[in-house]
């Protein structure tokens, strides 16, 4: 089992682009009981990864739930980092 932060980034290897809710619903079965598995914390993780060039924003919109949904995609640099650190 990967640490939560690794799993969030690793999700983009299989589902790209994805927003926070897509990532969370995919990780829910394994990480749902984690105290740090919260929407605002996962958003912060994604924004940090974007700030450091691992992810890029591909689109954003306001969903039917009235929440902002930002879709991220893995950059080439992000792919290199994941291949190097999370084989």
């Amino acid at each position, binding site marked *: 089992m990967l*640490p*939560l932060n690794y799993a969030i980034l690793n999700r983009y290897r299989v589902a790209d682009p994805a927003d926070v809710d897509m990532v969370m619903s995919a990780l829910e079965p394994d990480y749902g009981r984690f105290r740090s598995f919260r929407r605002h914390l996962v958003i912060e993780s994604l924004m*940090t990864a974007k*700030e*450091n*060039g691992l992810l890029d924003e591909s689109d954003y919109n*306001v969903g039917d739930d009235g929440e902002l949904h*930002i879709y991220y995609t893995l950059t080439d640099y992000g792919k290199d*980092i994941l291949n190097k650190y999370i084989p």
Partner: protein
Amino acid sequence: MSENQNAAILKRKLDDRFFRKGLTVAILSGMTYGLYSAFITYAMSNGVWADWYGAKSGLSAVVVIYVLGALGSGVNDTMSAVWALIVAGIKGKLGDFLRCLKTRPGAVMIVCALIGGPIASAAYIIALQMAGSIIIPITALCPAIGAILGRILFKQPLSPRMIAGIALCLCATLMISASAGMSGSGSSTQIAGILIAFIAALGWGIEGCVAGFGTIVIDYEIGITIRQLTSGLANLLIMVPIMTLIAGNIALSPELTLTALTDGPSMIFFIISGFFALFAYSLWYKGNSMCGAALGMACNGAYSFWGPFFCWLVLGCIFGQEGWGLRPIAWVAAVLMFVGILLIALNPLTLFKRNEKEVA
């Protein structure tokens, strides 16, 4: 308002909130660094430490300067690691802490901790003991080193505007150093202390840049637990024995370590300094990962002001120790540093453009 406009406004609010949080975290890291510096200095002047540093301690000069410096750093980081484990336990991150230890980013974190802990922190404490608070601004050269390494290793942006901001922060640092130098003795011990402080600057430059990047992958609270645990144990179990061996009496190592860890009057303040060290480093890592190494380290580097400031406030004003006064030039330098940080963080042209858009 169309859906697109609404989404754009919400997105900008989120981006602004993220940026403000990163900046706040990075600035708080510098402030807690100042508090950690003040309390560790006080801890190392209390209880058995007062005897060790006293004229009748019977310890050689090498032991007093180098071994006690590493020991103080080790006790502080070990206390900080205990705090980090408590915080990780409360937040339910102990499982992830163990999982991270077995991964490559975990190993990178351990190497960073060894560079920033036993090497840089011990150099910092030794320099602080040898030359006083004059060395604090010198060690704050690490933002420049971190920003340059961030550019080379991780392709982080470093524009001429950001370089100008870093240069301004360095000028402010030199102003504080120069003012302290004028009031200092200028003895060979003080000069040696200043040189040792450069080792700390280099070590932290490497650590801040690499560990800041590591916390993109590793949760910052797990990162700091790895850092403090590695640093504390490496200092107490490796550095102190090596230094006592060099000083010619390895038997001193367990004796000094056990005495330090069981000395109530100083341990109370090590527990406090360890608490502030936890936030000084964890917020430094988090700030660097949220803002990039250049801005994160410049904000953290403001500890060159916060260090002498809290030494004056805590040691001078609260505990009544003499010699911690803050010269007026330090306040001027603090303002300069603030301008420098703003220059790294914000592009004035972007601000003007944004205002024009809002007016339109």
